[in-house]
C-alpha cells in the first residue's frame, strides 16, 4: 500500500498550523521556540513528500539547507533566551514587556 501525496501534505499542513497557533497563543518563550521548530519540520516533511512525488532531487537537497539554518537559529536563539533569563529571571511572555510607549 502506498501512502498518497495528499496524506503527507495534510499532516504537514496540520503540523504547520499547530506550530503557528502555538507561537501565537503560548506564553512560555521556550514552548514558542519549540513551535517555531515544529513549523520548520512541517515544511521539511512537505518538501520531502513533494520531492519524491515529483521525482526531482532539489527538494531533498534543500532539506539539508533548512536543517543547517534551523541549527544556526537555535544556537543564537537559545543564547538570547539564556542571557535574558539571567537578567530577568523569567521567560514568560507577559513579563517581558519593558519596551513600550
Amino acid at each position, binding site marked *: 500500500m502506498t501512502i498518497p501525496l495528499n496524506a503527507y501534505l495534510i499532516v504537514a499542513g496540520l503540523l504547520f498550523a499547530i506550530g503557528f497557533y502555538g507561537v501565537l497563543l503560548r506564553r512560555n518563550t521556550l514552548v514558542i521556540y519549540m513551535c517555531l521548530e515544529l*513549523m520548520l519540520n512541517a*515544511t521539511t516533511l512537505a518538501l520531502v513528500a513533494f520531492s519524491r512525488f515529483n521525482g526531482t532531487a532539489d527538494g531533498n537537497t534543500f532539506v539539508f539547507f533548512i536543517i543547517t539554518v534551523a541549527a544556526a*537559529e537555535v544556537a543564537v536563539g537559545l543564547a*538570547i533566551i539564556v542571557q*535574558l533569563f539571567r537578567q530577568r529571571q523569567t521567560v514568560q511572555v507577559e513579563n*517581558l514587556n*519593558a519596551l513600550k*510607549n
Partner: protein
Amino acid sequence: MTPEIKALHDIAVSNYWPALAPEIGLGVVALALLALELLLPKRQLATVIPRVAILGFVAALAWTLRDWSAVWLGHELFGGLVRQTTDSQIMRVFFLVASLLVSFIATIVLPKQKAPRVEFFHVLLVATGALMLLAQSNHFVLLFVALETVTVAFYILVSYFRASPLSLEAGLKYLVMGSLSSALLLFGIVLLYGIAGNPLLAGHTAQSMNFAALGEFLRHNPDEPLALVGAALVLSGIAFKIGAVPFQIWVPDVYQGAPTPVTAFLAVSSKAAGFALLLILVRGPFLPLAQVTLPLLSIFAALSLLFGNLAALPQRNVKRLMGLSGVSHAGFLLVGVVASIARTDAVSWAPAAVYFYLFTYLLGAMAVFGVMAHVAGDADADQDFRHYAGLARKSPLLGAVLACGIGSLAGIPPLAGFIGKLLIFVAAFHARLWILLGVAIVAVVVSIYYYFGWMRAAFYEEAPPSPERAAVVPLHLGVAASLTLVSLALATVLLGVYQGPFGQWIATR
C-alpha cells in the same frame, strides 16, 4: 559525454567566481577581523577593527563599481542560482553604502556603551555579503539561505548590548517574529516547488525553484490554488521583513531596544532587501499571478500608509518614531511596487522610482540616525524628544543635519525625499491607482506633523534648566564625524535639485 555528465559540465562552466568577488572579499575581511583580534594588543583593537572593516566595505564598493556593466549581467550563473542585473548592481552598491554608514554610526555608539567591536563588525560584514547575494538571487535555495544569514545576523546584532535587558528583549521579539516569517516564507517556497514540479500538470518543470522556470510554469497555470497560496505566503514572509501592515507588530519594540547603529541597519538595509526581493519576484516569476499579488500588495500599501502615520503621531521616543514612520515609508515604496506591476507598459520606470526612493531614504535616515547616535546618552533605548530640546543652540551643526534629514524623510521640497515621493506619485498616477494615490497624499500631510514635532523640540524648545544630560551633546564633533554628517546633509539637498545620472537612468528605463 552522457547527458548527466554534460549537465554537470554546464553547471561547472557557469560557476564564474569573479562575479561574486565583492561578497567573497567581505567574507574574507570578516574572518580577518577574528584573526586580528588574536594578534593585536588589546588597546589597539578599538581603533584598528572599525578601520579594517570600513576599508573592506570601500574595497568591495570599488570592485562592484568596476564591474558595474560587466558582460555577465543578465545571464544565469552558478547553475541558475545567481543572476546579476543592473537592478542587482544598484542594490549591491546600496547595501555597501548603507553598511559604511552603519559602521560610522557604530564607531560613535559602541564606545559609549563600552561594547566589544570585533563581533559587531564581523557580523555586519557577513550580513552585508548576504544582503548583496540576496539582491542577485535567481533561485529559492539561494534566496532562503541568504535571507536566513541576514536574519540570524540581525538576531545577534539586535541583542548586541547583552548587559541591557531592553536590547535582549528586543532580540527575543525579533527572533520570534523573524523565525515565524521565515517559516511562512519557507512553506510558500515548498508549495511553489511542489506544484511547479508536479508531473501531472501542463508545463511542469524539473527546475521548479529556479525563478525563470517557475515563471514559465505559472504562465501556463495562473489559477492553480496551491501556487496562489504559496505566492501569498512568500509575499507575507517578505512583508514581515519590510515591516508592512499587518506584519508590523515587532517594529516599534525592536527598533527601540536595538542598539542605534543596528536600528539604522534594520531601518535601511533590511527594508531595502525586502523591496529588492519583492521587485525580483513580483516582476519575475509572480507576474502571471498579478490577480492575487496586485490586491494583496495594494492592501499592504494602504494599511501601512495609514497605520504607520497614525501610530507615529503620539510617539515621543525617537527610535519608535523612526520605526513607525519606517512603516509608512514601506507603504510609499509598496505603492511604487504596485505601480510597477499594475500597468507594466505605461510605467516601465516604476522600479527605478522605487530604487531612487530607497536611496533618498538611505541618505535621510542615516543623517537622522547619525545625529541620534551623538545625542544618545547612556541609555540607548531611551531617546526622547526632550533630549533634543535646545539641540540647535548647543550644536548648530547637528541641528542643521537633523533638519535636512527629517525634512527629506517628510518630503519637503527641495530635498531629495520630495523628489522620491514625487516619482512614486507620478508612477501611481500613470498606473491609475487613484485610491492608493489619495491615501499616500493624506499620509504625507500627516507625517509632516510628527516630523515637525521633533524639529520643534530641536529648534524652538529651550533645554531644561538643570539638564541631566547636557554634557552628552559634544560642542566639538570629531572631524570625520562632522564631515560624514555634513556630506550626508549636502547629498540630501543636492539629490533634491539635481538627480544627474540617476535621473538619466530613470528616464531611459
